[in-house]
């Protein structure tokens, strides 16, 4: 076997794959500095008369900043509420023995496999009855329910929270709520962060639910808003392009920053999820 030949092959494959993964993001960065009128006539992968027009227009004259804010509030709340509720339920399922415990675990395990996108319509009908349509809560509450989260937390709690520590604190007279707050939560912190990111990302990415639940342009989430610009058709291609490209760039930068800063937690979560299936 020829070693340098192998090396060349490996390098070629790496370059092609690297380009595949990175070029779209590079294209986005470059294109966000071009006007729509030049984007298809200039080198798509290099700058040509860079201008901040798209960003300025999108931030000052469109609803894009509102969509961004809606997405941040809804994804953040869903992540925090979802992770907390899942931590409580998981802790309870892992650390208490009671009748019906196995039944609840089975119910959660089955629900893990129910695709939430298949129940967007009944969720909308329910929300109409509860007056949740066109509200933040209408997105936050359904997004916060994570069967995977509760399952994940129960396993994590089982494996990390030492029973002796709980027992000792009980003997010292600590209340059950105190046990959860001062002992369980600190142990569950890594799982909490992991779950927060997952629910945050899933909510940020969700398109079908907001499509049903949020019906006023000012309430849209970011991807939904950007899609609506496309769907409503082109009357002012320059301006529509500005909103889409600037909004996409901002969203990508935010999510990538979030992922990079919390990368360790993501990996831990992926691993555990897979091992337990």
């Amino acid at each position, binding site marked *: 076997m020829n070693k340098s030949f192998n090396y060349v092959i*490996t390098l070629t494959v*790496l370059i092609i794959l690297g380009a595949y*993964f*990175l070029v*779209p*993001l590079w*294209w986005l960065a470059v*294109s966000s500095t071009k006007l729509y009128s030049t*984007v*298809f006539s200039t080198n*798509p*992968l290099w700058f040509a008369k860079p201008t901040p027009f798209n960003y300025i227009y999108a931030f000052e004259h469109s609803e894009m900043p509102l969509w961004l804010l809606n997405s941040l509030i809804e994804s953040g709340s869903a992540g925090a509420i979802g992770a907390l*509720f899942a931590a*409580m*339920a998981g*802790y*309870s399922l892992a650390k*208490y023995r009671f009748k019906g415990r196995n039944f*609840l675990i089975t119910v*959660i395990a089955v629900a893990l*496999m*129910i*695709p939430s*996108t*298949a*129940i*967007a*319509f*009944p969720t909308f009908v*329910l929300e109409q009855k509860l007056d949740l349509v066109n509200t933040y809560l209408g997105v936050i*509450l*359904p997004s916060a*329910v994570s069967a995977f989260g*509760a399952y994940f937390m129960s396993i994590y709690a089982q494996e990390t929270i030492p029973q002796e520590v709980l027992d000792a604190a009980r003997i010292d007279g600590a209340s*059950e*709520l105190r046990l959860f707050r001062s002992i369980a939560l600190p142990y569950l912190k890594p799982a909490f962060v992991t779950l927060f990111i997952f629910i945050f990302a899933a909510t*940020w*990415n969700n*398109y*079908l639910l907001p499509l*049903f639940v949020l019906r006023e342009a000012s309430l849209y989430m970011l*991807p939904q808003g*950007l*899609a609506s610009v*496309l769907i409503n058709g082109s009357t002012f291609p320059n301006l529509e392009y500005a909103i889409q490209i600037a909004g996409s760039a901002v*969203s*990508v930068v935010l*999510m990538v920053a*979030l*992922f*990079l800063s919390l*990368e360790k937690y*993501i*990996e*831990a979560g*992926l*691993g555990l999820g*897979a*091992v337990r*299936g």
Partner: protein
Amino acid sequence: MNVGRYSYIFFLIPFFALFMMFIIVPVVYTFRLSFFNAPPSAASLFTNYVGFSQYLRVLGDGVFWGGYENMLYFTLLWLPLMLVLSILIALFLDSRRGKIGTLGKVVVFLPYGVPTVIGTLMWGYMFTPGGVVHDLLVFLGLPSNILAPQYILYAMLLIIVWEWTGYNTVILLAGLGSIPATLYEAAKIDGATSWQLTRFIKLPMLRRYLVFISVLTIIGDQLLFNEPFILSNLSSVSFGFTPNLYVYHLTYFLEEFNYSSAVAFVLILVSLVVAILGIRYFRG
């Protein structure tokens, strides 16, 4: 506050309240709706009980089966492609822990940080004449009108492989990281080559992760919505392109709420069956 011996209930309530409301109730509601066929003017969707006839209609619905056929073909293309790519990348990055490994991991994982709607919008621009992909296809002498109906499946393939390969690679990397070092050492003492290490230790240890990824992928394919829905604004994508797109169309545009519930319930059942088969294989 001491909630005493029933405190476990207190911890369960918030999660299960939302769980009941936003998972159990919608699923049961969908199931119940599927047994009726309310006329458009009816005050309630639960009028005109028709038994299982909506399900018989699903069985004979060419658009529904067309969606499954489409997705079956799509899965046959993309599942092996994605598995091979992510195994290769994971093995490569695993053998280069340290700077290159970390950098590579970040690079492959980046696309997962792009919301699928936005990713599809971006690729859509790159597919149009003057865009990168279009120009590259012209350069390679391939059909360049990748947004044309007959190629749209491949356009979606390019987008979805881009979105998910990195995510799955990171799962596999976690799997490779969990292989005990003693196993490698023992094999090396016995004189195993790196190919043998891969073939007889790494790949078998990855099996459960590969099954996990495959199950999620197969379930995910019938539920594809964001990509085909966005693409349908750039090209002519049939409304039955994926089963989930069909459900949306039936509900939102045709307002066939009872029938769309039957179709949605079939999707839920198929998901459950695929998952259960996967778990069985996983354990067996």
